[in-house]
């Protein structure tokens, strides 16, 4: 759930893009390091780590708030979501996430946070400003991935042991449809025009393309890499360009990002990145895509235009999530 902060700050980005045509756009990326209990701050113009922030135990899911004032990071072993002040770069508050939070997503207004609560088979709804839990939606076993439709009306949650994408009406907090996908669904991402929902299945080894209006699987992306056994191909993170033309799928221990044609859903290319690649985030101008490589303790930078890996940045131990801020 790391690409959405970049995506939904589109208005700010457009303004920035208009003002600055120069190539070296400076944005800030925040990377959660699952093992180090830190968040690494990266300057995307210099491709450098500029600061390390100490956080709670086992940081994974990470997002920048819509107003840019906070970085939210789920620290699972501390059973909370911490709020890092982006000015002081220190943890200043916490949110009542429920036990062992991992993945969460903000609504378009930035007021509501949805948290996958894996222990209780619930999606927990949190009011960010008041910092209180305002509701729960019962879903399948081990809820994980969360995706919001661009209009914010439908929240999709994937449940890892039930193997479904649950479509939740955000107005009523009720499930309106359940779509069976392949084993251990990890991540859900809508195209920016809302026409398609992509859901990765880590154990199934596929990405299901779902028609969000009809709640039907209309296609599946399969991956084949010469010399790699099937079991090593474990799709996790998904990032789709704003124009919907190109999708990127992180393949976990296959150490590669699959580049997928957004229209035909054919895999065009595999980009070798670091080991056990988890999640991704575009720079707001979509020139670069940053990937977190869990086992090799680094970040790969992909030139989105050239579809080439151009840089590796060392971060903390076992980097997991990444969020991008336009500032």
């Amino acid at each position, binding site marked *: 759930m790391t690409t959405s902060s970049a995506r939904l700050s589109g208005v700010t980005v457009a303004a920035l893009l208009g003002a600055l045509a120069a190539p070296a756009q400076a944005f800030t990326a925040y990377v959660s390091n699952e093992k180090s209990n830190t968040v690494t701050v990266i300057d995307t113009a210099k491709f450098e780590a500029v600061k390390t922030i100490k956080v709670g135990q086992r940081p994974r899911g990470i997002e920048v708030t819509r107003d840019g004032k906070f970085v939210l990071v789920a620290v699972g072993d501390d059973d909370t979501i911490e709020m890092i002040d982006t000015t002081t770069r220190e943890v200043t508050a916490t949110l009542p996430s429920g036990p062992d939070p991992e993945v969460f997503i903000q609504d378009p207004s930035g007021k509501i946070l949805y948290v996958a609560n894996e*222990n209780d088979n619930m999606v927990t709804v949190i009011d960010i400003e008041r910092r209180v839990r305002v509701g729960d939606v019962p879903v399948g076993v*081990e809820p994980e991935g969360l995706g919001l439709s661009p209009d914010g009306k439908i929240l999709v949650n994937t449940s*890892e042991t039930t*193997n479904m994408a649950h479509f939740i009406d955000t107005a009523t907090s009720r499930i309106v449809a359940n779509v069976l996908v392949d084993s251990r669904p990890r991540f859900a991402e809508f195209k920016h025009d809302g026409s398609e929902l992509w859901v990765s299945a880590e*154990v199934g080894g596929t990405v299901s393309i779902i028609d969000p209006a009809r709640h039907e699987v209309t296609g599946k992306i399969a991956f084949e890499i010469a010399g790699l*056994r099937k079991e090593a191909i474990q799709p996790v993170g998904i990032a789709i360009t704003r124009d919907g033309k190109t999708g990127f799928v992180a393949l976990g*221990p296959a150490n590669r990002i699959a580049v997928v044609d957004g229209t035909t859903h054919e895999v065009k290319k595999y980009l070798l990145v670091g080991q056990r690649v988890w999640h991704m985030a575009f720079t707001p101008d979509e020139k670069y895509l940053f990937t977190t490589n869990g086992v090799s303790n680094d970040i790969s930078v992909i030139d989105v235009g050239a579809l080439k890996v151009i840089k590796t940045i060392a971060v903390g131990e076992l980097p997991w999530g990444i969020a991008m801020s336009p500032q």
Partner: protein
Amino acid sequence: MIRPIAAFAIFIALSSIAPAADVTEIRIGYLHGVRPKTAISLLDIPADNDGIAGARLAIDDNNTTGAFLGQRFVLDDMSLKDTEDPAAAALRLADRGASLVLADLPADPLIKAADAGRARGLIFFNVGATDDRLREADCRANVIHTAPTRSMLADGLAQYLVWKQWRRWLLVVGSHPADQLYADALRRAAARFGAKIVQERVFEDVGGARRTDSGIVQIQRQIPVFTQQAPAYDVLMAADESDVFAAYLPYRTWDPRPVAGSAGLVPTSWDPSHDQWGAVQMQNRFMKLNSRRMTALDMQAWTAARMIGESASRTHSGDPKTLLGFLEGPDFALAGFKGQRLTLRGWNLQLRQPILLVDSRTVVSVSPQEGFLHQVSELDTLGVDRPETKCSLK
């Protein structure tokens, strides 16, 4: 099978989620004997619900999914006393409406139950017996195995020891038949992966209690004597499935050497300390339901019941033949918190699975080890592989 009352209950309970019009009930038998309670360590004495506790958790998991799909899973517990006929018990389960049976039985009673149940269309899941012969000469077309075999366990351990360059093994074997079978698997593993058994010794079970008030005084004198004057070796391998002596070996050997096999570094399908690949969620769920930690037998039973749930949700069916067809087919893959998909070996219906190597506190490593390659699946470097199998499913 449609049960209006059950369907109504589900409807009420889950009306906020997704009401299902008709509910298919899938009844799963759990057929088990009484396992011995003798163990050297108090920590190893199994709970009364060892195994079935895992099945119950999987039934809960299946029912959460089933609520969305109109399927309801029910577990029917049948305990078998020593004198009871397993064949008759299997038929009783069939009479009570079970079409699938999880069995935690020794090899012979399991075969009897499976053969009797075959005429009634029962599909069995062997959750407890590690005997290779059940997947080889004595394999059955209606028995799926979620328990790993002794050869899979031994191979998983051997790969790690060879990777570690601890290739010289002193093998100590117990005097019970099961100990001998485990020793056979260890010998086979040594030959396969290039380890050498420098000497074998037998530890005779002369009877006596596991628990005595001050036995420790004697044991620390007996074990050094038993293990002295051995040829140079790297690891002491213990084959002691009967839990008579292996737990006494660590820290008491004549030479300062690590112990592996039935004590020390132990190969297993699951461990209460396993926390990778999302396993913490599983461990937490299990603890919440059962107020104790999850054992390998619990996991093997969970896996079997989840295979039934998985195939039922994929096929929208409760028909055992349809479920078996799906499980044997190319589309079946189970998420079992082991870092990769679990699938079935089509030639003998054994579940492919990584083997954890545990030291009773943590997971030390997970096999297959890097570098042990295979043309189909690296998981098939563990245990008897297709070209060597003696199984012909009928």
